[in-house]
């Protein structure tokens, strides 16, 4: 390798990007060294993603220079950045699902022979590259048949094929299981061994401490600090990201647990859920833990009537209810805040007010009461501290945390007694997270029954009174708060205990 480890491979000097009215990136200078994992951390809107787009030449900087191996690089679009050795692994993968792995890996740089695509070379080279990222699959398979994790590794292999010197990864673990994350980190480690620099964007604090050599924290488009891993801890990182102290990330209030509100017996859905039974009490926060794909969301959706069930009964406050649709669930007093706000939570081009009243329109004989709608929305804005200049504003322009509050407001409006929160903090700033948890706690205090689904164990361990662990569509066990421990829950989630017992 021609590069010395002491010379930065990539230098950003006073880079700015101005959009009409705002500096998305403001005078950022940053050095990236070969073989390091350089984490860029910061809240949503801090400018991380824009900075990466400037690097991968998706966007053109307004001012400043980027040096690659001491040479200033010119702006010629993403293809040019790739040819220079700067590769970007996107959050949403840029692979064509109907092409094969090999075709995807050599898209735009197909090996030719006599003007025709040389398929055998393509396949052979793909196989070698896939091996380097630990993927042992046939490159002739279609991308559409791969798991998310496999697709990601294909993207990385593609970056390797370009002889990348800098690989940018934007929240690569967002949809991966713990095992897959582990494998990804191994691949990252191998790449850094070979002198490749990794720029890694992440929200998840635990991850940052696992793989970072250095961390750059951004806030409001500027770099607040660049520190080696050894000089930061969780508290300091949060303070740098948020710009203020957060006293308690998980403000769990003490609640009095009351009567059984929801009793679920023998819920079964072919190939997805098997004989799930549990009880939920007023004022209780019950966690659903488990691996990605274990059936947590599926169980919530089944109870809510979003998916059909094949067997099982549901009782609300002692009365048996037939839930065949979300409509019926809402009537029975159940609410469900979906995992993916954008995909199935919000009507993006409608206003905050219209989104809030969506599940409970103020109507008389089919005619809307617009005054009532406005009052409801204003009240929700004040109570949930929804920060907006106007309640008629479209929700698509709001931050993730604010959007989440809009959905919470919608469900409070239905007077639901049972509320499912499915990954309520996904894609939300640290500051807004604390607010959402504060809110969940207060709802429990008022006697509502809460089910909290999360892939991030500390959230469950701190917020819940009891945790149900779900594995392969079944309830693998329940753990009371006094017995909470990460090991116990992981053991139940993975079935490790059973293996031990055998």
């Amino acid at each position: 390798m021609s590069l010395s480890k002491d010379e930065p491979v990539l230098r950003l000097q006073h880079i700015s990007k101005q959009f009409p009215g705002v500096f998305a990136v403001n005078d950022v200078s940053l050095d990236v060294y070969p073989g390091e994992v350089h984490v860029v951390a910061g809240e949503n809107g801090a400018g991380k993603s824009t900075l990466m787009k400037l690097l991968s030449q998706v966007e053109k900087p307004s001012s400043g220079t980027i040096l690659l191996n001491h040479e200033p690089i010119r702006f010629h679009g993403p293809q040019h950045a790739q040819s220079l050795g700067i590769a970007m692994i996107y959050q949403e993968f840029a692979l064509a699902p109907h092409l094969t792995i090999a075709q995807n890996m050599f898209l735009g740089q197909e090996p030719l022979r006599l003007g025709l695509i040389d398929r055998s070379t393509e396949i052979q080279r793909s196989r070698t590259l896939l091996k380097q990222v630990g993927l042992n699959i046939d490159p002739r398979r279609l991308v559409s048949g791969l798991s998310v994790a496999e697709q990601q590794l294909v993207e990385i292999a593609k970056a390797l094929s370009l002889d990348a010197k800098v690989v940018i990864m934007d929240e690569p673990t967002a949809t991966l299981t713990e095992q897959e994350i582990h494998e990804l980190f191994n691949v990252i480690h191998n790449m850094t061994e070979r002198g490749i620099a990794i720029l890694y964007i992440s929200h998840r604090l635990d991850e940052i401490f696992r793989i970072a050599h250095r961390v750059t924290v951004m806030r409001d488009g500027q770099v607040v600090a660049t520190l080696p891993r050894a000089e930061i801890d969780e508290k300091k990182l949060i303070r740098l990201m948020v710009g203020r102290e957060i006293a308690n990330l998980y403000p769990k209030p003490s609640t009095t647990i009351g009567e059984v509100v929801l009793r679920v017996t023998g819920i079964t859905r072919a190939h997805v859920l098997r004989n799930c039974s549990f009880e939920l009490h007023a004022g209780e926060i019950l966690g659903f833990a488990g691996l990605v794909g274990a059936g947590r969301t599926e169980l919530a959706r089944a109870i809510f009537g979003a998916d059909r069930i094949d067997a099982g009964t549901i009782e609300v406050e002692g009365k048996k209810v037939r839930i065949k649709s979300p409509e019926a669930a809402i009537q029975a007093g159940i609410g469900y805040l979906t995992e993916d706000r954008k995909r199935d939570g919000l009507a993006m081009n409608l206003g905050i007010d219209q989104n809030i009243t969506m599940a409970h329109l103020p109507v008389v004989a089919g005619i809307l009461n617009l005054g009532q709608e406005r009052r409801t929305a204003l009240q929700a804005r004040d109570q949930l501290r929804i920060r907006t200049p106007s309640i008629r504003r479209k929700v698509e322009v709001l931050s993730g945390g604010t959007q989440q509050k809009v959905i919470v407001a919608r469900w409070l409006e239905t007077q639901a007694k049972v509320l499912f929160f499915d990954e309520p903090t996904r894609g939300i700033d640290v500051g807004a997270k604390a607010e959402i948890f504060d809110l969940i706690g207060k709802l429990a205090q008022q006697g509502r029954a809460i089910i909290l689904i999360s892939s991030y164990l500390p959230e469950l361990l701190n917020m819940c009174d009891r945790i149900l662990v779900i594995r392969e569509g079944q309830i693998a066990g329940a753990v009371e708060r006094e017995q909470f421990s990460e090991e116990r829950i992981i053991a139940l989630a993975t079935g490790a205990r059973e293996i031990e017992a055998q």
Partner: protein
Amino acid sequence: MKNIINSSSEVADQPPIEEVGASFTQRLRERLVDVVAQLAAGGALIIVFIYLTFASPVFLTLNNLFNIVSQTAVTAVIAIGMTFVIITSGIDLSVGSNAALSGVLGVMLIVNSGVPWPLAILGGTIIGGIIGLVNGLLINAARLSPFITTLGMMGVARGLVSIFTNSVGVYGTPDDFQLLGQGTIYGIPIPLLVVVLLALLAHLILNRTRLGRYTYAIGSNGEAARLSGIPIKRYLTLIYVIQGLLAGFAGMIASSRVNSGQPNFGIGLELDVIAAAVIGGASLFGGQGTILGTLIGAFLISIIRNGAVLLNVNIYYQNVIIGVVIWLAVFWDQFRRRKFAVASR
């Protein structure tokens, strides 16, 4: 919200309510976006209108304006329904065939079955509604896409017209039947009155009723709407029925205009109708559209067609002009959205 979420908080130092400082200009800007959107099509309408007034001595005569209005009425009535359909992110390609079938069958009710003409108008409208119902059921019960469903219906209804008529016009309606398409009340053309009344009603439904709100919600995010407890299939079916009723009624207006049932009526009409809605700001991706915009779009197309005839522009060029207008309208719509990124309704 009855249960108050107390805002005293363990979360330290909430930042102040953000963005309030910029709110006035921001709000002004958001309002502007609205106005500008309708201005574009409306402005184009006014400019073309003024231009034709000077360019052709015939254009601004009562006779010609009457002509434009009654020509536009058919398109506009169907386009009112299409606005609902497009807001739900659907499409109805069968409206032209539907209007032809309903118009012909309505006339046959008068001629062959001796039904009084006012009842026959109702009958033709209901036939249109039945076609809409079949569309709605195919989309929501058989889960075909709106495009495929209505593409099929376009062929089925057109075929039925030929089967019923042997592709020959149906004549023999009483002169009174012409009232709907050609009559006046106090000098105001009845087709114009019909369009204005239907448009007002549709505007109120879209903005002031549950049906209207759900139309936007379903188009903006169908899954979110379903998970919010909205029975989306029922509402979608209803919307296709409404579209069918309007197409059937428009078919009767068309028959009344020529005082007969014409099997070849409405070929390609669906494209004008869709163009009217799109020029008026409706988005084929759903969630967006207004009745006023659609009306402006319908009249813009009519006036361009009318002007082209008056100015002796080759008929082939008319279609080129309309096509370019569609491009410009959609281009403008996307441009302003990008420009005023903080859009609101």
